[in-house]
């Protein structure tokens, strides 16, 4: 499983899914991301990332009920899996450990 990699954008989406636990679907993730990174993101990019991570087993999904608002289409909610969480942890630890090696030099 360790061969599965996590791209930068995927990592952001995965973090967002984890943060919005059980309330995350395409639009909320998009809006959360846009708010945090202060940049326009295309919804298709989010969907692609979600799809890939679902295939890798980092997230799992369920369908919500049918509503009138979205042209009668169901929402697809995502939650992070244990594997996904482990992946985030590994990433976090990795960065943290490298970060700690940075000498204490002032960058003014």
């Amino acid at each position, binding site marked *: 499983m360790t061969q599965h990699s996590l791209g930068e954008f995927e990592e952001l989406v995965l973090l967002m899914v984890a943060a919005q636990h059980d309330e995350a679907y395409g639009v909320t993730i998009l809006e959360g991301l846009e708010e945090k990174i202060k940049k326009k993101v295309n919804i*298709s*990019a989010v*969907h692609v990332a979600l799809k*890939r991570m679902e295939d890798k087993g980092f997230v799992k999904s369920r*369908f919500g009920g049918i509503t009138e608002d*979205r042209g009668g289409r169901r929402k*697809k909610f995502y939650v992070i899996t244990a594997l996904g969480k482990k992946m985030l942890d590994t990433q976090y630890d990795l960065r943290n450990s490298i970060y700690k090696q940075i000498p204490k030099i002032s960058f003014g």
Partner: protein
Amino acid sequence: MSIENLSTVYFEAMSAPPKYPLRFLRWFCREDSLDEIEGDLTEVFLKQSATAPRKAKWNFGWSVIKYFRPEFIKQFKQQPNTYGMYKSYFKISLRQLIKNKTFSVINISVLTLGFSCFLLLSLYLHDELSFDMFHRDANTIYRITQQERQDNGTLRNISSVAPTIGKEVREQFPEVEDMVRLSAFGRVTLGNDPTNRTHERALSADANFFTFFDFPLVEGDAKTALKEPFTIVVSETIKEKYFGAGAALGKQIWSGLRRAGQPVYLTVSGVMKNFPKNSHLQMDILFSEATWHSLYNDYTQYVTTEWVDTEYTTYLKIKPQSNTALLSTRIEALVKNNYPADREFRSSFTLQPLRKIHTNSSQLESAAEQFNVNSIKPFYLYTFAALGFVLLLTACLNYMNLSTAMAIKRTREIGTRKTLGAPKNQMVVQFITDSVLFSLLSLLLSVGLAYLVLPWINVFTNKEISISSLPFEWLVMVVAVILSVGILAALYPAFIATRVSIVDALKREIKIGGSSLSVRKALLVMQFAISVMMIASTLIIYQQLNYLREKDLGFSHENLVVIDVNSRNLRRNFETVKSEFGKPAEVLRVAASTRVPGEWKSFPVATTKSNQNTMGSEMIFVGIDRDFLETYKIKLLAGRTIEDPVADSLKIVVTQLAVEQLGLTDPIGQVVEIPRVRYGERMEELDTPFRVEIIGVVENFYFESLHRKQLPVIFGALNTAIQVIDYYTLQINTSNWNNTLETLKAINHKIDPDTPLEYTFLDARFEEMYLADARRGQIFLVLSIIVVIIASLGLFALVSYSVESRLKEIGVRKVMGASVSSIVALISKEFLVLVIIAGAIGLPIAGYYMQSWLQEFAYHIPFGVLVFAEALLITLVIAFITIGVRTARAAVLNPVNSLRSE
């Protein structure tokens, strides 16, 4: 609409996601991702469109395009699946085909019949339409035709013009790039072996003939072949005949032409490939024009000054985009300016495109038959095209009918498929696969069949058609039409089958077939309407052909042998020649005349005036001797016939029709005047009007084919200035024709050793006149038999289906005491009603069509109701036999078998 309304509509339109990107998304997107993607997209869109509607739309569209990637496109993941389905469709179709052998054989043979007829008719039509198109400059070549107003107001349309016209047009009008003239001068005797000489039809052509047209030369040079005097170019056939295998270039041949009393030897300056059959020009021997300039002193002067004679068929090659209408009026002005002052000019000229010569020349008079070989009327082309489509249609209607019946039999399969979740289009594809399989198989078979039949058809139509002669575009078109019609035919049964509800299908309740049955009945009515139409047309054609053959022509043409006079020796001292030919015991009677009935040369037509008819009427003039009327068994009604060629040279015998047109009540002893005579193309004023006395009246008879209106006939003596003897007619005992022929040849050789005997049986000549009609009749017969077979098979299938679904009913009826015949009658009745409805539709169409066909003949059978009744009766009998065979089989079945299976 109020402004508020408008704005809400506008708002709604703006607040809904754009239609086309959405449709596109739905089309390509995977089913399992669609909910999420479309939902999220719509949500984002709605939020955005509240502030920036236009931008939201653009965004939506752009996003949709971004989704167009492998992860979200359905096809990519489904590919192997679909392939498996196609394999399955094919397998099932094949199994169905093998399982229902009778059905498959009927279906495939019917489709094959329909397809091959369509294919063959396409080949035939292509051949007719591609006439003369093999010339490189086919599209810029025109023939000058002349329209000349006659005394009686009618127009004569002639395919040839005066010799000067071509030359002057070429020199004076810059848009004319090239010109070639052809003239027919009759026949010439050829042969180096004095005992084996024959008459050959010959033409002469300008020196540029072989560069103007693209008739390839096997030997000789196209540029110089027709330059020198006393040279000829011959076809391969003629070369073989006189020179055998090997080269003939430069060889000499004896000819019947005379120069200073000596026979002329001609030099072969070229051998041309035999002309393709799809050329309107058909010729075997071409003389160089220079020959005549050398042979006759005044020929050069004639060719350069003659503006009236119409003996030269003239072709022009015109610069592309020239105005041909303008050119023809300029030609008219040119001729008018040069016309002799003492002649009234009343002609106009038309440029006839080369590609139209074959199909648009039937109204044209031609200087020689070689200039309009087998010209066909567009009427027949349309007819054959229509027949092709009609046959294709009936075959496909039949296929639809049979497949629908089969589809209903397959309801259990359909029910099972539906239960297992097959979508509608899968069933449609299944049926289309069936149909494609059937169509392809039939197409292959029909190509094979066409190959087998083509040689026979080529002999029959005297053509050189081969499948490979069809250009690629035509082939693609024909195959496309065949296949698309085959596939279209599958849509209806597919539609019927998929409409069936699952429960009904599994219960094998075939009631749903009710509505489809009525459609199939309609299809059957159409098929039978076509059949009735074809039967009625064939009957009328055959009645007309019979009428032509049996019609009392007013004279006898049986056991008459006509000998053509081709030399001076045979013409001089005709009394001696007559008595020589009359010597053998088999020859019962001999007559000499200038023309004979069923004439193949043109008739001299004499304008005849009387005191009552001062305008004059055109009458055929024939010179006869004293034995003519008796030989032909033409009945003399009053007076006497011509007895002595000299003493009676100012006497004539006329037909009743002539008497009528001259307005005479007591014709015998009356004197009439003949001011001018027309010989084929030429009208000639006689120097002194010919005044003759009527001495006899004969019954009317038909001198020409019955396509033409009967003309009045005048018989004169042989010693008039109008015409010389051209024929001897021998009434013979045909019991030992070969011996008689040898005797006649010997006699001929004695009289004229240079010229071979040329003879024709007169009844064969009359048969030949209607040969084209008889052939078309046979084609019609064959096609109508095919149509009837197809329709009967369709009926058979429908009756089978009906009987099978009513087997139980029949069983119950039998148990209750119904007889076999009453059951047959019960089922036949409803189908026979259909046939009668078909008759009501088909017969008026046949009537309308046949009416216009019969107009081709000046004399035709009366147009009666009887023939339509006959056609309907024949159809009913065929239908009844078809129905009866199938119903009877069901009716004699033991009811135990049909009732047991509950």
